[in-house]
């Protein structure tokens, strides 16, 4: 058996990311998904419009991300004093107080990585739709899978609520426009991570670029 033949055989298999049970891929109907027999984790989908939705959701995400950084997230009132916080002002005040490690880590986890992931989704979908950037898409997909575990937007949203509960009773608390943008962004981020599987993007990439070369 040649390496090529071996790889064709290997590509018919899939290993569950959660419990590592081996499965043979089967054909599924449009819009359906295949689940792991053992742990019920979704293995793959049949989604014809994965690139369209990747592009649309990516752009929407970037817009929401910009909005969530332009306005205050939350505002508090205490004895006539008003103060607000945004993602950037929060990171700056950590730096001002000398908490560089915390500041840099927080900046990466809730600002730089989430933004990079969105840009990668948009770039990938666009390149694969137009059939250009054979090697770039490969690099981007590798980068994407390394970044995904390090985006913590949903944890941050929960943290905002926890922080506010600590303040309620002492201060008046108002949510800013950016908070709601961030909540929408979080929902979109969860949707993307549930519905766009890295393995499917790789398969699609191989169909788009490698079949052409033959």
């Amino acid at each position, binding site marked *: 058996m040649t390496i090529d033949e071996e790889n064709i055989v*290997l590509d018919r298999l899939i290993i569950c990311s959660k419990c590592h049970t081996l499965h043979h891929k089967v054909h599924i109907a449009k819009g359906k998904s295949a689940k792991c027999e053992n742990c019920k984790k979704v293995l793959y989908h049949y989604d014809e419009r994965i690139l369209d939705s990747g592009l649309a959701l990516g752009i929407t995400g970037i817009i929401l991300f910009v909005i969530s950084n332009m306005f205050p997230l939350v505002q508090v009132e205490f004895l006539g004093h008003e103060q607000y916080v945004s993602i950037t002002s929060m990171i700056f005040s950590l730096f001002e*107080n000398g908490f560089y490690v915390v500041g840099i880590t927080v900046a990466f986890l809730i600002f730089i990585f989430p933004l990079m992931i969105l840009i990668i989704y948009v770039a990938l979908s666009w390149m694969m739709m137009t059939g250009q950037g054979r090697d770039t898409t490969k690099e981007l997909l590798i980068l994407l899978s390394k970044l995904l575990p390090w985006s913590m937007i949903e944890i941050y949203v929960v943290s905002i609520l926890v922080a506010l509960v600590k303040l309620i009773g002492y201060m008046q608390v108002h949510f800013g426009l950016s908070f709601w943008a961030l909540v929408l962004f979080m929902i979109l981020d969860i949707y993307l991570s549930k519905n766009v599987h890295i393995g499917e993007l790789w398969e699609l990439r191989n169909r788009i670029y490698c079949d052409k070369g033959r």
Partner: protein
Amino acid sequence: MIREDRIIDESKLLRCTVCEAVNLDKGDDIYCHRCNSRIFRNPKLSTSRAWAFLITAFILYIPANIYPILFSEKLGSRDANTIIGGIIVLWEDGSYPIAMIILVASVLVPILKFIVLIYLLIKSKTKRYKKNKINQHKLHYMTEIIGPWSMVDVFVVAILTGLVHMTTVRVIAGPGATAFVLMVLFTMFAALSIDVRLFEERDKNGSS
């Protein structure tokens, strides 16, 4: 049509962590046939790296709990709060749900992660004579999912530091926060560097 069942040894199949492709284990150095990432370096190296990360995280866990994670100043008087101290204050104030969230995220999740990772690292060394009841892959997957949630307390401190800095009331992060951030990062590095190939062999009941 190639008959796969005869040629492929199912116990030697590996999942590429980068692109999810299935690869055949041919020895020490394999490069994924789809994304070309190196899947497997050296089991001893990845195990000792995981131990190094884990021990570092454990050492950081001590200052993270001893030193205050935040200071709050009210009209000149300064209060220092450690993680546990903050939970107790919340509990006494009657914010039970929030106290529980922080207790789970900052205390129980890290401890659970330490225990699970140590268990996985020790288990991966011993021979697998009998079938394990616990699926180690599932356990590892769970630690990767719940691990990041211990960042909640750090984010809360960051938000409060950014939000509450008035002349009469001020909240500032404490040195415990730095230790805690590093601890979470190191446990995540440890979880990511564990070689899943060292786990118990996979169940062979699946044929989708």
